[in-house]
């Protein structure tokens, strides 16, 4: 079982001549929480798109559980849960309906009332998704990502735009999931979030890898006292070159 959950090798993608992801390589091990860190527009979402097969790479390859997501979509997504940035819902859909709809996509879906309960959303079952608060909606998107009973979830900027309380709440649920042995791949630009949640992190800048390792390794390598300072230091150093 030493097969990595996610393997990214020399991944490269350009949009109209601009390299958004540039020779990126990293691995995510089973059971760990891995964070992809970087500025807005550093290529985090594009990297996720490439791994999930939503976009085709110009060079390099990415695999989930040793499979190419674009080619073996069916097998891959039975085991992969996804929360994409800026995903909206159909107008006039209720929380419960969204769950039924997404559950119908999987061969052996998780029991959704249980998940709603776990995330404290069961009282809102009949409310319209459009009426939910930001935090509730993000929790719902986590519920939907977990509906397929996945081994790994991809969470793209899950907590962006949430207030402190809602963010802490989401962290708490992610920690629970981690304890249950779920592999989590997340992107964020909040350093304290990465520090609180992650086993390992990879910092990218303009699609290039700047640092990778456990949070402590990254901090130690920069000689700073916390991840935020380390991040700023690493980003600044890159600019001086």
């Amino acid at each position, binding site marked *: 079982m030493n097969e990595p959950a996610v393997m990214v090798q020399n991944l490269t993608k350009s949009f109209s001549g601009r390299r958004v992801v540039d020779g990126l390589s990293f691995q995510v091990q089973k059971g760990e929480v891995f964070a992809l860190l970087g500025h807005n527009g550093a290529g985090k979402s594009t990297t996720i798109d490439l791994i999930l097969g939503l976009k085709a790479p110009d060079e390099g390859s990415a695999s989930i559980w040793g499979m190419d997501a674009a080619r073996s979509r069916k097998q891959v997504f039975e085991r992969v849960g996804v929360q994409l940035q800026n995903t909206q819902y159909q107008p006039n859909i209720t929380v419960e309906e969204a769950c039924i709809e997404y559950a119908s996509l999987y*061969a052996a879906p998780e029991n959704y009332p249980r998940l709603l309960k776990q995330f404290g959303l069961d009282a809102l079952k009949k409310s319209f998704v459009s009426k939910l608060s930001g935090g509730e909606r993000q929790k719902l998107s986590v519920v939907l990502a977990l509906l397929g009973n996945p081994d790994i979830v991809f969470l793209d900027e899950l907590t962006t735009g949430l207030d402190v309380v809602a963010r802490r709440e989401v962290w708490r649920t992610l920690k629970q999931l981690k304890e249950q042995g779920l592999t989590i791949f997340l992107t964020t630009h909040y350093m304290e979030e990465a520090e609180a949640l992650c086993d390992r992190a990879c910092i990218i800048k303009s699609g290039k890898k700047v640092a990778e390792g456990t949070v402590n390794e990254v901090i130690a390598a920069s000689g700073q006292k916390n991840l935020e300072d380390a991040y700023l230091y690493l980003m600044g150093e890159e600019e001086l070159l």
Partner: protein
Amino acid sequence: MYRVEQNIFFRSPDVILFCLSMPLVVFLLIAMIAGGKDAADSGLTYLQSSYVALSTVGICCSAFMSIPITIVELRSQGILRRMYCSPCSPARLLFCDTLCSGVMSACSTLILTIAAVVFFGYRMQGNVLVYIALWLLTMISMFSIGLMVASLCRTTKSMNVATSLLYFPMLLFSGATIPSEVFPATLRAVAEWMPLGMGIRLLKSVSMGCYDHMVMPVAALTAMAVVCGAMAVKTFRWE
């Protein structure tokens, strides 16, 4: 999944308004104003003629409003993208939505039929089963046009323009709402060449129990369904 989409569908007021009530209201008006009179030289009364024509309004609404709007919205909101990240194909969602539109058109026609039969004593002279078959053919070819529009239009804006350009002329000039018998001859000629006009003419002749000259329009509608359907599939994009 179908059930959920259907629920969502019925929740939007514009669908109810355009698809279900408008044909009924127009039908009631025409039937009350001119129901028993003969519609020009068609051999039908206005009542008979407008029943047939209005039974296609539901199709027209679904094909050129509901279908493209739903699909383009699903795409622009990233729902199709999200569906792509599941073991199931987003095609299923599209299929469900198209099916919903079909059911909606059928409902619209059903309500109209009940009104016509119960309140105005309408009886179809032709074979009802042939009528239903041709109605379905008309629906399929209109839907394939709608799906093609949804595939070709990148943004909500361009889709709105395209659907309006298709929807309103078809609705007004193909004889679906305003009986084509009152049109001047040139406009009537145009109407006959509109896809929906072709369908309406076919349905009218069947409703009279006349089955001549059907090969050409049936072939044309089928060809349209195949070509537009193929275009829709070929040019389709998730994002």
